[in-house]
């Protein structure tokens, strides 16, 4: 479907298609060419992936070590929060700390980016030394966010073990970093962007592919 045709569809039809799920709709900032968005995973599939991830983590929990679940903003934070809530309910015998990392000041592309979106505070108000840390991110591609997050963790202390959990692994690694736990592997062309949407941050759930034209 060409861009002109898409434009001709009109907002009402676009909205209707989007609501129907799996359809096409336009998004993006004014003045830029709107990327085409395609749904890759439904809300149920996201839930199944999260269940898978959670169970894999549970099988590998350490004994006699302080446990911390730390999410990378924004959606890694939400996922980490869900994991912590479930863990606290299922395993009241464990003490589980919860933290959030903002990698904004640690990115390796800072000198290439134009403009500065807001970087929020990192929230790790517990001792990381000798802890078992589960680092949580939403979609893993290049591995660069994880590299930055590891650097943040090491500025806060010296965890005994850091494990990495990602809900979606979309391939395309540029650094020698691998996740220990993966909810779902998906295959996405390099030039496209896979985006996870979660109820808490986006009002809906699913994994979408944004194809940049």
């Amino acid at each position, binding site marked *: 479907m060409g861009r002109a045709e898409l434009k001709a569809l009109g907002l009402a039809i676009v909205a209707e298609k989007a609501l129907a799920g799996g359809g096409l709709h336009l*998004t*993006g*900032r004014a003045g830029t060419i709107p990327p085409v968005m395609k749904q*890759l*995973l439904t809300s149920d*599939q996201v839930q*199944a992936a999260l269940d*898978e991830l959670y169970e894999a983590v549970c099988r590998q929990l350490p004994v006699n070590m302080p446990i911390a679940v730390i999410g990378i903003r924004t959606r890694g934070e939400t996922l980490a929060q869900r994991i912590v809530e479930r863990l606290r309910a299922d395993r009241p015998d464990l003490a589980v700390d919860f933290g959030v990392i*903002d990698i*904004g*000041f*640690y*990115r390796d*592309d*800072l*000198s*290439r*980016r*134009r*403009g*500065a*979106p*807001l*970087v*929020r*505070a*990192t*929230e790790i108000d517990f001792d990381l030394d000798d802890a078992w840390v589960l680092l949580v991110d939403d979609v893993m591609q*290049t591995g660069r966010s994880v590299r930055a997050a590891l*650097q943040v963790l090491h*500025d*806060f*202390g010296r965890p005994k073990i850091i494990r990495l959990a990602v809900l979606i692994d979309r*391939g*395309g690694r540029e650094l020698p970093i691998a996740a220990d736990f993966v909810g*779902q*592997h*998906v*295959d*996405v*062309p*390099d*030039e*496209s*962007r896979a985006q996870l949407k979660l109820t808490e941050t986006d009002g809906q759930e699913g*994994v979408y*592919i944004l194809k*940049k034209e």
Partner: protein
Amino acid sequence: MAKKASTSSRKSETATRAGAARRKTARATKADKPAPSAAPAADAGEFVWRRKDLIGLDELSADEIVHILDTAESFKEVSTRSIKKVPALRGKVVGLLFFEDSTRTRMSFELAASRLSADTVLFTAKGSSVAKGETTLDTARNIAAMGVDILVVRHSQSGAAHMLAGKLPVSIINAGDGAHEHPTQALLDIFTIRQRLARVAGLKVAIVGDIAHSRVARSNILGLKKLGADVVVVGPPTLVPGAITAMGCEISHSLDDVLGEVDVINMLRIQFERFQASQFPSLREYSGLFGLTGERLKRCKPDVLVMHPGPINRGVEITSEVADGPNSCILQQVTNGLAIRMAALYLVSQGNK
């Protein structure tokens, strides 16, 4: 459960490399629109800072001011860590150009730069090329030519920072220019107000003292008004220009009249070094009328916030009892200044591409 959700084949490595080369070309030719970034774009609607310089609060929007304050909030957290450093400006050089003396602002910028992992070089007017007759622009150009990325400029002439910003490709931060503006001081004042009183809009702020010579007053009035606070400037007629009402503030010549109605009192320093002629009959009379004493503090709202940009003339504009008392946030201002300057350095560096 199926592990493969989509079936698009991965590109060969050569194709990826060709793509990378194309991106590089696009960046090198640099059209007027932003070069495509490999990093995910900011969420639509999210505010993004795009300024190369920080000259004054006059040209900033309320959104931009709030963005600086929020960024400083994140840097405040960095200062509470055992390792108080982030790599945000690693490899960058910050030049501190102090044509006018300053100790705390300079130290604050120096420390802010080092917490961002930047290197600093210092230039002071004393015993330097300025004494040999070099112009401000030539001095700045020479320092920029050494590969400095950000220049922090303090100058006795209003407009010095603005002039340099227009002529140099490096980022300029105004650290005080004449009687014009001192944006980082006002930002740290507003940050401290927001921190202590949890809001800025709707507050009434008194700025007391030498309004005529004060860049701190001007920047504070501009910033506070933009964020929805009311400002009353207080001082003897010789130190309060009538035209200051054009900035949207009220004037009072009696501190006693405003005490009961304000949420914040910002006591400016009497700047003896700036007086050309005697602008009030005696120091004793001035502190009698405009000094903040324990007795005056009793007539204020109980949670009134007492501020001072420093250095304090104890016993002149503020008594020790008040400066060191529970309503004072003078040292908190200094602490917050560091976070504000980290935010300023980080933001202008990201805005200059």
